[in-house]
């Protein structure tokens, strides 16, 4: 039975956001007997609500509140009001994610040490490492039911994968398989197996893909320790004269402002909303925003080096059939500066339907060069390229005082310029992606620019020293003991891998820490 707590109850932990970070944290705390109020800006959608239709689903799930953009990234030109493709719903972007569940490589926890000085990059080592994270990754993989871990079989390869695999092997790549996916190859944890339906990005109607929306959230609610308040938009975190946070002001669905008291506040609104909330919570005691004595709140925004390669063939592929992200090549994920850049990247199959292919293949393009590509849609294969991008202090989320959201709050402006390392890596990845497809007879290949960002990282980064970042090794803010960050914004560096598994592992670990400290009365 879901709990219901009083606004005046100052014994609760308030978590803002219910995705991979906040949703998992909420359940893990509730399981340990900690009482939690989770504020979720979006509504609740479950598998029966999801739709196999790209634009309709986008309208149902995507975060469409206003944001602005600046910088030299092409997203700022082609999708100026949509810097991110993330979800506003209970369960957050775990409804939309493709399911790729990869651990960081050991050296990626120590990017500054491993890569050395990179001009213009604000590299820093994480204050934690692979050995410390190993048991938390183990728990995360069990929770998500990740294929190729714990004896769980890999998924079968679809057409898009079989073609990709053949090209990869022809090039001599060896780390090629159908991925470590949080998509069931057989029934697991009471959830169905993958029926190769496609539309992973639109919410899995079988529940075969792990999402907090129908796993951690209802399980947390079942403990009687978790109340999820839907369509509750956090506006401001308040604090007392001692500089401890006291609770969260939020707007309910009707626009009424409420104040929920709290013992601890955990921010998990993804890498735009989390720093935005801290900045919008500025006060006379904290004029630059909460937890911002370092000046690092909002800075070091990372979005992964991304891009896609699509290719057409002289025979049908029908890439949309089956799992959207159906396989991976990891050979380029290593750190090998001989390629002309530091860090590495993964190559992962990806498919879009015709509506999204028209929007994203080459945004802004028109004429027959473009339409002949779409005419060959049935003969097309695709892959996504995802690698480590460089943190830069000037890539940042700031408040745009000129633009207000529906609640009258200044929106986030997202500024991003590619670092030369990002560009060198992308060009290398484009070449390798093209080579994979040419090895199996591609008649034409297309370098597709980055989509609006799904991997948003780093705007409240973790650091050993308070001057270098926003939160410590537990995600606890350096400045305010009872204020935590629980999402991907705490990433010190981005690594090459899709971030969800690491966000989940950090959330499980953080829950353990918070519950222990609460029990010890040190929080």
């Amino acid at each position, binding site marked *: 039975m879901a709990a219901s707590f009083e606004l005046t109850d100052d014994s609760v932990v308030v978590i803002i956001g219910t995705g991979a970070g906040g949703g998992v944290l909420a359940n893990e705390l509730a399981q340990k007997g900690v009482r939690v109020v989770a504020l979720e800006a979006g509504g609740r959608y479950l598998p029966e609500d999801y739709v*196999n239709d790209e634009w309709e689903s986008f309208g149902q799930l995507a975060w469409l509140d206003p944001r602005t953009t600046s910088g030299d990234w092409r997203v700022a030109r082609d999708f100026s009001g949509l810097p991110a493709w993330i979800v506003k719903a209970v369960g957050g972007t775990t409804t939309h994610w493709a399911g790729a569940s990869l651990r960081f490589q050991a050296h990626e926890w120590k990017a500054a040490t491993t890569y050395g000085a990179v001009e213009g990059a604000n590299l820093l080592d994480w204050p934690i490492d692979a050995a410390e994270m190993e048991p938390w990754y183990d728990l995360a993989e069990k929770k998500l039911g990740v294929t190729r871990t714990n004896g769980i079989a890999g998924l079968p390869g679809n*057409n898009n994968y079989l073609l990709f695999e053949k090209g990869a092997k022809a090039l001599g790549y060896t780390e090629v398989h159908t991925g470590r996916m949080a998509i069931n190859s057989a029934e697991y944890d009471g959830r169905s197996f993958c*029926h190769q339906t496609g539309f992973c990005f639109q919410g899995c109607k079988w529940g075969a893909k792990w999402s907090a929306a129908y796993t951690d959230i209802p399980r947390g609610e079942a403990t009687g320790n978790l109340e999820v308040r839907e369509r509750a938009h956090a506006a401001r975190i308040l604090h007392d004269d001692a500089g401890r946070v006291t609770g969260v002001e939020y707007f309910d669905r009707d626009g009424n402002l409420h104040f929920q008291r709290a013992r601890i506040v955990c921010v998990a609104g993804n890498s735009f909303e989390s720093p935005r909330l801290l900045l919008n919570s500025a006060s006379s005691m904290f004029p630059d925003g909460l937890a911002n004595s370092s000046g690092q709140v909002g800075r070091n925004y990372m979005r992964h080096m991304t891009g896609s390669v699509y290719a057409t063939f002289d025979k049908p592929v029908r890439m949309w059939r089956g799992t959207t992200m159906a396989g991976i090549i990891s050979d380029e994920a290593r750190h090998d500066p001989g390629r002309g850049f530091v860090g590495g990247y993964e190559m992962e199959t990806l498919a879009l339907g015709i*509506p999204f292919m028209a929007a994203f293949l080459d945004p802004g393009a*028109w004429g027959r060069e473009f339409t002949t590509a*779409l005419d060959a849609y049935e003969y097309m294969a695709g892959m996504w390229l995802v690698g480590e991008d460089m943190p830069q202090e000037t890539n940042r989320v700031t408040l745009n005082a000129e633009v207000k959201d529906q609640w009258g709050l200044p929106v986030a402006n997202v500024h991003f310029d590619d670092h030369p390392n990002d560009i060198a890596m992308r060009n290398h990845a484009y070449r390798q992606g093209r080579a994979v497809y040419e090895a199996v007879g591609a008649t034409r290949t297309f370098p597709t620019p980055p989509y609006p960002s799904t991997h948003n990282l780093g705007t409240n980064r973790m650091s050993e020293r308070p001057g270098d970042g926003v939160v410590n090794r537990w995600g606890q803010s350096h400045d305010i003991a009872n204020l935590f960050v629980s999402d991907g914004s705490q990433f010190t560096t981005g690594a090459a891998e899709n971030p969800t598994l690491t966000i989940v592992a950090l959330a499980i670990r953080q829950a353990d820490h918070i519950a222990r400290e609460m029990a010890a009365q040190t929080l």
Partner: protein
Amino acid sequence: MTLQPAIRGLTRRQLLSRASAAGASLVIGAGFVAAPDAAWAYETAHLRPETFATLVRMARDIYPHDRIPDAHYVIAVKGYDSAEAAPGIAEGIAALDAAAQAGGFPSYLDTGWERDRVDILRSIEDSAFFQTIRGGLVTGLYNQKAVWPIFGYEGESYSQGGYIERGFNDIDWL
């Protein structure tokens, strides 16, 4: 303001006899626009028929798919035939015609060859009007379920049990 498979109350012969000669691809009648073969017709509410016909021609020239019938381009742009949008569209099409005339053609619609029309479009592609029309077509054209089969795209699959038994791995030429 309807799109219908054939002209109600008009035979194809009658339709053609009432048509003006503006453009090769569309026949303009009094207050409506129709395909030369009467495969579809659209009665405009706020735009002049010539203006609407030009808009349809422009839409096809921006995203030309030779296997997509005009009717789908009509559907993609008919939202502009509203009281609110019509003045801006009329102004934009007038500018397009002016660009055509600057190139020595009588109007955009009467510029006979696609290659010449594309040159005209290139001359205005940075304009807000062109970008509005192009951007609107991305969803207006490609999000019509009726055009998806032309691309081979199968759309929704959950109700059919996905592709696990319907060819998710049926590639046979590798």
